[in-house]
């Protein structure tokens, strides 16, 4: 069966660090690490340490604050300096645990591999590993994997890494390939999929080759080299392009028998189950036009961006923009005091020329956004409907399924901020639906009252 691949944008690759094995950055005594308790989608975690507590590498410092939540472990040894309120870069504030490192990096002595014998114990282990969707989404993985194995037809291992610059997953697939395969075997054992498909963009032939070799004896594994067309790694895109299935609006991948898991996420789980070492550090790609030596770094969670950049050799010119994550979906932050969190895959610093957003001009109706959208949306029309405040049109245009991948804004010759408009339009649609619901309820209440009155007469 051949699958007609979804549309996408030919973004530049810029995988300058693909050959760079991640270097573990040393933690100097006195370094302050700030670990926000809210690093993933869902409820914030609850701190279990107090000021002046001594912590070690791999020690639990915050426990899950709800069902959709995740524990947090310290990536350094040292002393809890304070429990502070911090403003996150997306505008919300939350508690943060500030740890002053002692530079010793002493390992927590109670670390031991968990006993995994069946699905519930596997899910428990995934939960305890502290792993969330490391590809960028940051959804707690234990929640995602907690599905009925009878429903699972395919597990897609997402190694697309379609964002420019980032090579953290590339290095994971090359340097931790054995762990990745162990992870695949765990998934096969407990989730019982018919097939495991590893989807990798074909601009990483070395990863395709390596994983094909390692999975030679696993008949249920297929390594699928996908064309390097952004956003190959989007969940719905990955499912469609590897299995041909379409996730309907408002449904989850499991509703069409699929589970998608990022390579680094899976390696994180496999590592915890093998050694008992939870997620405390991240492969981070440091690159961009203002970085002197682009490279991959293993940075503890909570490390300030500035320190990570200093470790790589600093800026080569004055940075004008810092982006956490890839250039297509990453967030530009106001300061390099921001810290590495669980789903930080890259730190990109850009010079003046690359930092300035291009000038926006009027839409010339070229249709590029429409013909590039992987989900067949019509961003130009969504923008018009949004500007006119037409909720009904936005509903028909299905702006709610937009994954904000950025293809439309990338290809737009008029440089219109179409992704941002889609985000705002989603809010408008939300309000519109709420109003419709309220109106309907009001009408129903009125009708019921009228009927009651009629009955009384």
């Amino acid at each position: 069966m051949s699958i007609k691949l979804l549309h996408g944008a030919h973004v530049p690759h810029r995988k300058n660090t693909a050959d760079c094995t991640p270097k573990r950055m040393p933690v100097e005594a006195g370094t302050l690490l700030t670990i926000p308790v809210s690093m993933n989608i869902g409820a914030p975690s609850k701190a279990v340490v107090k000021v002046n507590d001594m912590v070690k590498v791999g020690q639990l410092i915050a426990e899950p604050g709800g069902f959709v939540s995740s524990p947090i472990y310290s990536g350094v040894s040292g002393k809890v300096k304070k429990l502070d309120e911090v403003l996150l870069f997306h505008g919300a504030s939350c508690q943060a645990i500030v740890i002053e490192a002692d530079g010793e990096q002493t390992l927590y002595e109670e670390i031991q591999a968990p006993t995994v014998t069946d699905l519930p114990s596997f899910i428990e282990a995934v939960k305890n590993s502290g792993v969330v969707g490391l590809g960028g989404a940051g959804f707690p993985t234990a929640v995602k994997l907690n599905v009925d194995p009878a429903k699972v037809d395919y597990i897609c291992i997402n190694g697309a890494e379609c964002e420019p610059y980032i090579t953290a997953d590339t290095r994971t697939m090359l340097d931790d390939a054995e762990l990745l395969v162990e992870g695949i075997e765990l998934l096969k054992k407990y989730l019982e999929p018919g097939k495991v498909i590893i989807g990798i963009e074909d601009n990483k032939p070395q990863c395709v080759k390596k994983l094909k070799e390692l999975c030679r004896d696993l008949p249920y594994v297929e390594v699928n080299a996908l064309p390097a067309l952004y956003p190959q790694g989007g969940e719905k895109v990955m499912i469609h392009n590897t299995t041909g299935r379409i996730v309907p609006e408002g449904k989850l991948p499991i509703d069409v028998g699929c589970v998608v898991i990022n390579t680094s996420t899976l390696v994180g789980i496999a590592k915890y189950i093998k050694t008992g070492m939870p997620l405390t550090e991240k492969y981070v790609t440091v690159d961009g036009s203002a970085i002197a030596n682009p490279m991959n770094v293993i940075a503890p969670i909570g490390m300030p961006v500035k320190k990570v950049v200093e470790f790589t050799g600093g800026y080569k010119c004055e940075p004008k923009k810092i982006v956490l994550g890839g250039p297509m979906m990453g967030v530009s932050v106001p300061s390099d005091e921001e810290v590495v969190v669980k789903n930080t895959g890259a730190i990109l610093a850009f010079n003046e020329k690359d930092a300035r957003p291009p000038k926006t001009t009027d839409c010339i109706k070229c249709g590029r956004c429409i013909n590039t959208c992987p989900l067949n949306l019509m961003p130009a029309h969504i923008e018009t409907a949004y500007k006119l405040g037409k909720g009904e049109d936005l509903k028909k245009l299905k702006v709610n399924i937009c994954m904000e991948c950025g293809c439309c804004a990338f290809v737009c010759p008029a440089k219109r901020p179409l992704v941002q408009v889609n985000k705002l339009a989603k809010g408008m649609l939300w309000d519109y639906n709420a109003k419709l619901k309220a109106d309907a309820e009001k009408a129903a209440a009125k009708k019921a009252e009228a009927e009651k009155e009629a009955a009384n007469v």
Partner: protein
Amino acid sequence: MSKFIVSVSPHITHKDSTQSIMRDVLIALCPAVVASVIFFGWRALLLTVVCVATAIFWEWAFQKLCKRETTICDLSAAVTGLILAMNLPVDLPLWQAAFGTLVAIVVVKQLFGGLGYNFANPAITARVVMLIAFAGTMTTFAPTNFGVDAVSVATPLAAMKSGTVDASILDLFLGNVAGSMGETSALALLLGFGYLLVRRVISWHTPVAFIGTVFVLALAKGGVMFGLAEILAGGVFLGAIFMATDYVTTPQTPWGRVIFGIGCGLITCLIRFFGNYPEGVSFSILLMNILTPYISSWTAKKALGGVDA
């Protein structure tokens, strides 16, 4: 006060801009300009320069007058001027050309809100207005430099209308026939088409559907040679490649573009075969421009996995 620029994603964009697209269209029309100079002499270049310069001037002047931001740097006015020039007979008085660009830029484009907001193609609408206003000069065509020695001659289409095909297919292909300056040389226009395709400025859908429809209908009416003559004579290539592919006034989806092209071809043939005018390309595109919003809504894309409420 942050020292970093904070902006919305994506943080990189494609190198193509409105300006670069317009520049590509100008480059793609260069072979046609060269052909017009070869076949019709230096006055072709003079008329072209006047059209482009006045188009830019009107845009600049109107925007100054309305205290709007000047957008002549996006080169869209230059494109309109150049396309209009390609649609004019070489001996047209210069003031009439300047009037044409005034209609195109001010009336059709700026009064509707400028680039992106006009519903009809400025160059085509201006040409139609001129055809009515200056019926004499707009339909007087000089022979080419390699043609008969006469002040004016009939265009191949007019000749065909009266039942005599006098130009060879080779002359029609190269452009050695009477007609509007830029429309006669199919070869030059095809070079431009190739360039636009390679640069991904336009898609093949509209031109192929347009030219294909005209060819098939003419084939049915009068055989292969007649079919070839119908597509090579007159403005089919110029219209299909450069005017029916104007972004603003044509559909945005591939199927919409195919329907648009077929519609243009159909109307062109109806006018040519049954109407009073020998040529129907301008009218066909103008009429299809008006249908564009409907075609767009018929061919709207269906969101992947979208559920109808």
